């Protein structure tokens, strides 16, 4: 088997909580707690989960926009977690990010041309003439026109701004793009346009995506494999068809059954789970889902279930499947 493009091993991020007059550390928010996964070249890995599950933190850790507390990230066989900040800055040529809010992630005082040129200046790619050419080229690639280069972000609609965000990520010819909720701020009709664009670009430019989102329909549409996160843990990870057709983890089952489907005749087995998502500052012991799980057993309160391969390529962290696991 070929080496995956990105490999994550035991990644953790604990944010300290300060309290009292002296700001002593009184605890930790375990935003990401021991997750492992890999992404193959040319595929799209979707990461879904509800608010506070750590999916965005994960994206930022991979880019080292946040420093991981523990764990290793390998990109193309090279360890990203051990290198210096300067080396990491150079690595970001190959790993780029697209953000959720196209209003906040583009500098309102810069023209589109300047915004798009910035990554080339930072990484010292080409001469000014080449850079300009590249800007016009990419504007066309993402479905805008070269005359848009002289305009400012506020002159564009939300969908167009997200296209600019994507163009900026593509300026350095990256291998991997981490997209953090790239379409959640957009209207349905515009969302479809941006999703189609991302799929087209993936085909023509042979990109690899990590697609972070909360919308399960969108994630199924775009992903080859999907990981489901809950309270800082990876609950389940499988090929997207398997995950949606035959979810193993009770949380995935509940999550899928909670999504409203645009078909009035659709009858489902609804597993409405009770209660709220616990606070990541004080997560439940054992399996973090045990407080809301309909299949809770005694062991779930005490022992953290291992994230293991249950079927071929289908990983889950749940005590229900502990026996069937290949030894």
């Amino acid at each position, binding site marked *: 088997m070929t080496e995956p493009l990105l490999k994550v091993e035991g990644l953790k991020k604990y944010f300290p909580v300060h309290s009292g007059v002296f700001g002593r550390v009184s605890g930790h928010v375990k935003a990401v707690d021991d997750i492992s996964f890999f992404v193959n070249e040319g595929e799209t890995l979707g990461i879904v989960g509800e608010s506070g599950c750590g999916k965005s933190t994960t994206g930022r850790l991979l880019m080292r926009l946040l420093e991981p507390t523990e764990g290793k990230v390998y990109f193309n066989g090279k360890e990203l977690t051990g290198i210096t900040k300067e080396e990491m800055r150079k690595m970001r040529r190959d790993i780029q990010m697209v953000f959720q809010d196209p209003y906040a992630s583009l500098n309102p005082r810069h023209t589109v041309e300047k915004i798009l040129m910035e990554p080339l200046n930072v990484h010292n790619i080409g001469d000014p003439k080449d850079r300009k050419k590249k800007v016009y080229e990419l504007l066309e690639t993402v479905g805008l026109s070269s005359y848009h280069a002289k305009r400012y972000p506020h002159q564009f609609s939300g969908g167009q701004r997200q296209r600019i965000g994507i163009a900026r990520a593509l300026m350095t010819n990256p291998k991997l793009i981490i997209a953090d909720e790239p379409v959640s701020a957009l209207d349905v009709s515009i969302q479809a346009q941006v999703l*189609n664009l991302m*799929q087209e670009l993936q085909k023509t430019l042979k990109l690899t995506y990590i697609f972070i989102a909360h919308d399960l329909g969108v994630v199924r549409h775009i992903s080859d494999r999907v990981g489901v996160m809950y309270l800082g843990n990876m609950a389940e990870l499988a090929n997207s068809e398997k995950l949606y057709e035959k979810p193993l983890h009770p949380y995935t089952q509940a999550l899928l059954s909670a999504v409203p*489907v645009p078909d009035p*005749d659709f009858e489902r087995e609804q597993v409405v789970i009770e209660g*709220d*998502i616990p606070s990541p500052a004080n997560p439940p012991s054992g399996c973090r889902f045990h407080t809301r799980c309909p299949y809770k057993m005694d062991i779930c309160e005490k022992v953290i279930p291992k994230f293991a391969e249950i079927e071929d390529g289908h990983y889950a962290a749940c005590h229900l499947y502990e026996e069937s696991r290949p030894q």
Partner: protein
Amino acid sequence: MTERPKVLDVKGLKTSFFTDDGEIPAVNNVDFHVREGEVLGIVGESGCGKSVTSLSVMGLVPSPPGKITGGEILFQNRDLTKFSEKEMRDIRGNDIAMIFQEPMTSLNPLFKIGNQLKEAILVHRKDWSKRQAHARAVEMMQLVGLPRAEELMNEYPHQLSGGMRQRVMIAMALLCEPKLLIADEPTTALDVTIQAQILKLMGELNERLGTAVILITHDLGVVAETCQRVVVMYSGKVVEEGPVDTIFKDPQHPYTRGLLASVPDMRFKKDALYSIPGNVPKPGSIKTGCPFAPRCEHAWDRCVEETPPLYETASDHQTRCFLYDPKEVDSRDRTTVES
């Protein structure tokens, strides 16, 4: 089946905002009605006028710059547009209640939940004692499935989670047994598992109390699951209206069809998503013709020149599109052949 009486009947509603750029009609000639005990969905994308419609009904359009410039809003056969502010205040929260998208901004962070609930009762029930109001508030909190209702009365909004706050808002809206509940994107700020809880609750309450509900949302899945009838809005106009079954199974307006086709379905993978070309127009930017014409693949000269009326296309189903004009049958055949 005898038709239940209409609780709300909106006729030719026009709400405009007066800005430096002139009059911008956010809601332009909108008609719809809600019957007793019915759940009506209003769907549309941002800027289509769905929220301004609901604010107009509640008499909450910020004025200036906004103003209702035409039409009637008949609530139990009385025209709300003619009501004074004082009369509206008696209606609001009493006969018509509203829930908003963001429960945190709708609750006052400085007052205990209990006081806020009691205030809402005492404003409208002047002869009630505080004790009665307290009992009623606790009763409603239990009805909406809030645990430890008595204790929650003494807590502040920030101590609750998003889902619980939205339950408090629903409890507050139902305190005075309103005839009509307007819910403006009530679950948009919530996570899916919590959204499922809230939608289930609203469905149960609608069945048990018989309160008519207007659910305003952009999420077609939510509409399919909770509403009986649907109004689709685009650029300040109703473009299609009909029972939920026919809207989803046999959508007629090209916009509705495009919208439904662009939603990724969680149940199966489509190869490529259909996407409507172009952008949502700015309110008021399209003055003549069908507002959807610039993005419509069926549009022809007439669509740009005149504004289509609503055509009755099936029983209870209306569509604002010239494709359904009986006089245009030839051209309708033409487009079906083409597609």
